């Protein structure tokens, strides 16, 4: 479990000098600042951070990067709540209940909720990591395409939950999103749906598409309104209310814990980080006795999404630290820090540098306090956005989004996607199609296709293959169980009562 010797060495490393701590606040601030601006992405934050790493020693570099990601994880929630523009795919779940709360004038509480949930999620994830790094990693490595497939299917069921008032339209939106997610070069080198455009070979760029679908569509709608929050008396930034929101988080321990544990688990899977918040939201909604309240500004929605998002980082850290294998963007970049200091990852890393591993974990736990403080200050400033007239906000946000999406890849794929999906998103909203379902489909498209394809390839076409994958079967059974349970428990007559939506 915990290597006490290494733990003691870690405490000594951290307590002995102020040097490692020097980089924490800058890291958090960079992560927060970059991700709080709609349209800016992690690669831009990295562009700022990477040139600084050669000047740091190894421990500092790792702490700097984890601090940056800690800030990033929360930063993306800020525009998600205030503007309905998720800073990245990881904040999509936060928009579902965050923006309605903002519109109702409860933006202070919403931001406070998100901050507290994010902090708690990180704490839980790192505590798990501290105690269970080795077992988590050993388990993680046994998860392969079949397991990923089951998790993707689970994500797809979220589409059905987000169906809005019309079932068929919701499902169509989701399937449409799924297909859009598979545009581009297949793993076998076949170009699908690209019209011959090289720029589409990598698929439709997700961040501009999401921003377009969510933001532009919503912003177009608000063109007739004056402010995000109609009621003038509620259009304030209030520290007390932010704190109230933070306290509110702790009144839903079940949702909080479930989100954090789920996020940690899903974060282990490659690609899991982006969808952890969605799956957590879906589960929170399923488990609730009053699911209709989700989507209208229910605090539990924010808590579920943010805690899972924050904790999914801990999951992918486990595979990096214990195994030296990166599972995604964040951990791949940390390997750069490894490389710059002549250290190989790998299982030997945990063995030979256990004190550094523990030092990183401990400092991440301590970072949460700084995050809460810095985040609070940030929210306070960011909250003033609601005081700005929409007629100023709309063009600024749109222009920022366009510039950001261009700067992403230095080509027009981003901006064109943004504009195109803005129109599609508006039309979808007009005709009552849930945009969220399409977004979930888009995010899951590649992931699901890859998992499905590889499972098929591994099995050689033999369905019996799945019987050799107990973990995948377990997830599948859990999934079926979680869908079927409400029906079995409540019995048929009450079920018909609950079905308020129309079919079409």
């Amino acid at each position: 479990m915990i290597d006490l010797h290494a733990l003691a060495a870690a405490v000594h490393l951290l307590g002995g000098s102020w040097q490692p701590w020097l980089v924490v606040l800058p890291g958090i601030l960079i992560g927060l600042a970059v991700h709080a601006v709609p349209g800016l992405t992690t690669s831009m934050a990295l562009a700022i951070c990477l040139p600084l790493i050669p000047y740091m020693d190894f421990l500092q570099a790792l702490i700097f990067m984890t601090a940056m990601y800690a800030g990033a994880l929360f930063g993306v929630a800020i525009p998600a709540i205030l503007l309905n523009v998720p800073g990245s795919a990881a904040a999509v779940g936060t928009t579902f209940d965050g923006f309605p709360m903002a519109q109702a004038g409860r933006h202070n509480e919403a931001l406070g909720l998100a901050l507290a949930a994010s902090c708690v999620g990180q704490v839980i994830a790192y505590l798990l990591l501290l105690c269970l790094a080795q077992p988590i990693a050993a388990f993680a490595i046994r998860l392969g395409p079949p397991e990923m497939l089951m998790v993707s299917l689970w994500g797809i069921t979220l589409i059905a939950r987000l169906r809005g008032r019309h079932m068929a339209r919701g499902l169509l939106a989701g399937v449409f999103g799924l297909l859009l997610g598979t545009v581009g070069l297949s793993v076998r080198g076949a170009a699908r749906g690209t019209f011959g455009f090289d720029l589409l070979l990598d698929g439709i760029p997700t961040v501009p598409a999401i921003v377009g679908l969510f933001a532009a569509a919503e912003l177009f709608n608000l063109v007739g309104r004056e402010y995000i929050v109609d009621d003038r008396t509620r259009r304030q930034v209030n520290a007390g209310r932010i704190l109230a929101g933070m306290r509110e988080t702790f009144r839903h321990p079940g949702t909080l814990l479930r989100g954090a544990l789920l996020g940690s688990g899903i974060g282990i899977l490659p690609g899991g980080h982006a969808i952890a918040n969605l799956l957590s939201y879906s589960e929170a909604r399923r488990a609730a006795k009053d699911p209709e309240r989700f989507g209208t500004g229910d605090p539990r929605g924010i808590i579920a999404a943010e805690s899972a998002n924050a904790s999914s980082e801990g999951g992918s850290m486990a595979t990096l630290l214990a195994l030296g294998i990166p599972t995604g963007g964040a951990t791949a970049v940390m390997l750069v820090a490894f490389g710059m200091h002549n250290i190989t990852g790998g299982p030997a890393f945990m063995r030979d540098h256990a004190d550094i591993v523990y030092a990183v974990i401990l400092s991440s736990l301590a970072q949460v306090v700084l995050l809460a403080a810095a985040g609070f200050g940030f929210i306070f400033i960011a909250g003033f956005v609601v005081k700005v007239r929409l007629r100023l906000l709309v063009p600024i946000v749109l222009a920022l989004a366009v510039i950001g999406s261009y700067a992403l890849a230095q080509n027009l794929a981003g901006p064109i996607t943004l504009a195109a999906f803005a129109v599609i998103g508006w039309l979808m909203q007009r005709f009552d199609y849930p945009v969220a379902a399409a977004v979930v489909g888009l995010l899951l498209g590649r992931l699901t296709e890859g998992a499905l394809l590889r499972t098929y390839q591994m099995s050689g076409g033999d369905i019996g293959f799945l019987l050799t994958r107990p973990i995948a079967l377990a997830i599948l059974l859990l999934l079926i169980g979680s869908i079927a349970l409400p029906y079995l428990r409540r019995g048929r007559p009450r079920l018909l009562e609950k079905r308020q939506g129309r079919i079409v």
Partner: protein
Amino acid sequence: MPSRPQLTIGGRTIAVDLPHLAFVTAIAAWCAWFCQDAWRAQKGVENLILIVPASAMAMILYIVVAASCIHIVPPQDHPPAAPRRPLAPGMASKIIGTMALLAAYVVCAPLFGFDVASFIYILTMLLLLGERRILVLVLVPALFCAIVIYCFNTLLATPLPLLLFPGDAA
């Protein structure tokens, strides 16, 4: 212009929600085209394993939704309620204007430089949305361009094509 034209066939009146029908047909058409394009790129299970079932599902859903766009109007009924909230007067032109400006901005910015294009875009949007204070109309776009473009070019080292300011960008 009624969005639900009515035909009379036989003795029955049928109302068609045309805009919605057009929209959902467009989506279904894309799905069908995409499936066909993928099929042509590589006819194999490995390429189509998700695309074909998803497209088939899309077709089924399309039929269901399209059918819902067509209603038989019972006789002696008042015209049925509109399927959607009608747009507030003047909104339609604002929304179309916003979309058109966004499209123009996206096309022109790399061509004419982000600085000039952003300035003009924000200025025109402000005018469209009803801003009339000269100070705001001039200061806001100018400040935006100055701050944002400085940040992107210098801080984030992501070169943007600019017209008026030197840069290494392509």
